[in-house]
């Protein structure tokens, strides 16, 4: 990490950014300094809404619509981005600085095939011809472990799973081999096994092309693998910065220490209620397909009241699809869904309002699941109004209460629009919306994936408390085994549309288990910066390939 002038790539000084909401300007980033050299990776961590994405964008000289850079300087490779012309700045984007957006689902243009969006920048900058660029894309897809790398690019964004989109987005950022890539939570939606490979691929590429990167994440273990230095943010302010080793071993600030200390939440595993207890939800031999493509095959599991079933599995294994079958969004082609002993009609349209209320789903892609033209208060308030008939003051106080539960100040967020929120904040809105319906069964599709440890822990605790109080049942779709470990009672492991393993959590976490479960377990990142290297070495490169294609 030679601090020579020559290597200096990005220098940000006293960056201030304001956001426009409710007809006035609010400062959301209060004077951040940041220095990045060629080939260096900096991890940006901090709680949800701390301003990570905002800073990441600012590094490209860009402010979101409704935000503005109100002070400071951003110098990229000797060029002052705050004062250069828009066209000069634009010439940098895509070619020399690339961005991996946090909400991949919303950031892909629904009208174009994925690969066409991928090749756009290289063709535009005349770095590659179309065919070359496509070939390159497929290669990158392969490296990022996307299934069918030759074919998947020719699908439209809505035809692939959340995690697959995220990887396609990462590949897209690398298309021009830029000098600096800003990764905004590139692995939040990935299961651990895939995550390892993607992390490895990212690291490879970064090293191979001497690319500098800003790696934004909430996951400390991940950042530990990737970053040379780590910067911790809180509410738009810098808390501290140090190289990874130091930061991990010896954090100075209390806030950082608290971040480091979170993985403590653990809950007793509950047993299935004995006797003739009826499961809240019982998935029985469900097959499902999208058009002609079969996705699920003979999926069965039960969820009992007051229990949490974690569904884990690699990206694209059909977790979200199972959820869609349960809610009736995707009528299964065979098999049935039984709730509280009653067989549900296959489509949600045939279900009664009460049946619908009972089972709520939190969408994986918070971005697309929130109506951009509806205010937060209405999004959250609607189920309360719709199912409970709350009105006026009662409704408002219920919304305030829910906002408090998900740790968003009501006074600040009450009347915002979704576009004025950070990724994690949106996800929390999704949670609040589900809670507002007071269901007795919730499908949580990657609810904490975009949240930092502190907030995530808060949410988990909240869910746990509600479960205890109201005897709720959860189906917890997640890639994060730590989360599974802390809250699940039972675990269902899915792979390629089938349930490969299931059972009580403790059993699952104690060997021996199904080889795939094994692989999952060993893929959970650890805080040791050398963990990734070690794991990869242990498995050997071939092994990884096998693991992903089995």
């Amino acid at each position, binding site marked *: 990490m030679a601090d020579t002038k020559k290597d200096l790539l990005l220098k940000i000084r006293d960056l201030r950014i304001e956001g*426009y909401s409710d007809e006035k300007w609010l400062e959301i980033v209060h004077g951040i300094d940041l220095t990045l050299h060629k080939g260096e990776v900096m991890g940006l961590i901090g709680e949800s809404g701390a301003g990570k994405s905002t800073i990441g964008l600012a590094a490209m000289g860009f402010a979101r*619509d409704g935000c503005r850079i109100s002070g400071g300087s951003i110098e990229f490779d000797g060029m002052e981005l705050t004062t250069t012309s828009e066209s000069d700045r634009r010439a940098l984007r895509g070619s020399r600085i690339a961005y991996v957006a946090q909400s991949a689902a919303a950031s892909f243009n629904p009208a174009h095939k994925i690969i066409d969006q991928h090749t756009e920048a290289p063709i535009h900058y005349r770095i590659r011809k179309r065919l070359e660029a496509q070939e390159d894309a497929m290669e990158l897809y392969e490296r990022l472990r996307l299934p069918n790398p030759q074919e998947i690019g020719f699908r439209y964004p809505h035809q692939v799973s959340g995690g697959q989109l995220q990887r396609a987005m990462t590949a897209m950022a690398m298309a021009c081999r830029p000098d600096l890539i800003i990764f905004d939570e590139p692995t939040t939606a990935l299961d651990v096994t895939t995550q390892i490979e993607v992390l490895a691929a990212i690291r490879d590429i970064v090293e191979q092309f001497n690319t500098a990167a800003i790696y934004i994440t909430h996951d400390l273990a991940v950042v530990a693998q990737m970053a040379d230095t780590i910067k911790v943010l809180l509410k738009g302010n810098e808390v501290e910065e140090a190289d990874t080793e130091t930061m991990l071993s010896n954090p100075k600030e209390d806030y950082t220490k608290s971040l480091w200390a979170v993985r403590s939440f653990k809950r007793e595993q509950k047993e299935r209620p004995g006797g003739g207890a009826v499961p809240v939800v019982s998935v029985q031999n469900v097959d499902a397909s999208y058009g002609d493509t079969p996705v699920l095959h003979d999926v069965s599991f039960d969820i009992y009241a007051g229990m949490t079933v974690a569904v884990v599995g690699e990206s694209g294994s059909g977790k979200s699809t199972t959820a869609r079958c349960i809610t009736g*969004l995707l009528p299964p082609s065979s098999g049935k869904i039984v709730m509280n002993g009653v067989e549900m009609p296959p489509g949600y349209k045939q279900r009664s309002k009460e049946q*619908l209320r009972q089972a709520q789903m939190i969408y994986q892609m918070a971005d*697309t*699941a*929130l*109506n951009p033209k509806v205010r937060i208060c209405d999004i959250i308030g609607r189920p309360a109004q719709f199912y409970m008939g709350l009105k006026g003051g009662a409704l408002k106080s219920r919304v305030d209460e829910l906002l408090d539960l998900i740790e968003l100040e009501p006074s600040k967020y009450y009347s915002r*629009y979704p576009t004025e929120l950070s990724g994690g904040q949106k996800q929390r809105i999704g949670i609040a919306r589900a809670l507002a319906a007071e269901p007795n069964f919730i499908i949580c599709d990657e609810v904490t994936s975009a949240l930092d440890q502190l907030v995530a822990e808060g949410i988990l605790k909240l869910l746990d408390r509600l479960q205890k109080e109201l005897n709720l049942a959860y189906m917890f779709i997640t890639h994060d085994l730590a989360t599974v470990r802390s809250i699940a009672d039972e675990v269902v492991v899915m792979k390629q549309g089938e349930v490969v393993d299931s059972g009580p959590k403790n059993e699952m976490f104690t060997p021996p288990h199904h080889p795939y479960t094994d692989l999952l377990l060993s893929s959970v990142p650890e805080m040791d910066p050398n963990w990734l290297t070690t794991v990869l070495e242990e498995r050997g490169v071939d092994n990884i390939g096998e693991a992903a294609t089995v």
Partner: protein
Amino acid sequence: MNYFVIGYYALLIGASCLAAYYSVRSAFLLLFSLTLVSFIVGIVGGESALWTITICAGILALCIGTAYAFREFLVIVLWGEGSKAIKTAPLTATFGLFVIMTYAIAGIFAPIIAPYGEAEVIAGAFAPADENMLLGADQLGRDLFSRLVFGARNTVGIALLATTFAFVLGALAGLIAATLGGFFDNLMSRVVDVIMSVPSLIFALLLLSIMGTNAFVLIFIIAIIYAPRVFRLTRAVAGNVVVMDYIEAARLRGEGLWYLIRREILPNSTAPLIAEFGLEFCFVFLLVAGLSFLGLGIQPPTADWGSMVRENATLISFGEITPLFPAGAIALLTVAVNFVVDWMLFRSSGLKG
């Protein structure tokens, strides 16, 4: 060279220099290119061309001034949300608002504002403007200005009612069709095909022979003629919205049709609908005139702009400007309404700057 020409260039060049000095880039570019254009135009068209430019610029400046003053006025007069919104409105929008307000006042207080009655014959045919008549007389010797003022009431009133009616009808059906899909969608689409396919001539004649001619029938006919267009547009726009995840989420909640339409789909489809409204509103003026050509429509001697243009249209072939006054009144309103529409469009698009 006379004083006017010298003053003209001096002013332009001076202003350009000032703009350059204070580095107001766009203003400088504008002023200086105007100077350059003036050189050419001045040489080709002589002093009169320069006068034209000056007058145009003057009018433009007047409009901008009005818009600016009106915005300040509204900011002070309005309160809460409205005031905040107006503060950031572009000048074109406030200019549009100003024109619309003027028309509204003219329409509402027509009998007080107009110096003469709607049907009052006071002069010879096409008498030129004099101290009594601001714009001269029409073909029967009625005061053109008074007729324009009364026309505001009738024309705008009918257009507003008819367009609103058409939009309520068309948009509602379109939204329902897009949301429900399936049979209802198919049925409505075919019904709309049928309505659109029947030539409006036959349609109007038929309805008229059944219901007789009065303002309400007129509004009804127009609404029926326009509703299908709105339907198709709404359906197309809403069709893109109903496939979004958030609509799925709302459906999953068991939301009723009305809520889906009103709170989830409509807010995401407003922009094209607003734009369409701005245009249809103006098309209605012409349709009213077209119907009155068939002998339907507004009864004489009620003044209506479209018919006023139509009646005297041939005069334009001889360079007479009588038909230009009502045409101008329509154009001004069209432009004004659409300026406001542009602003609303911008606001509803979720863009901020």
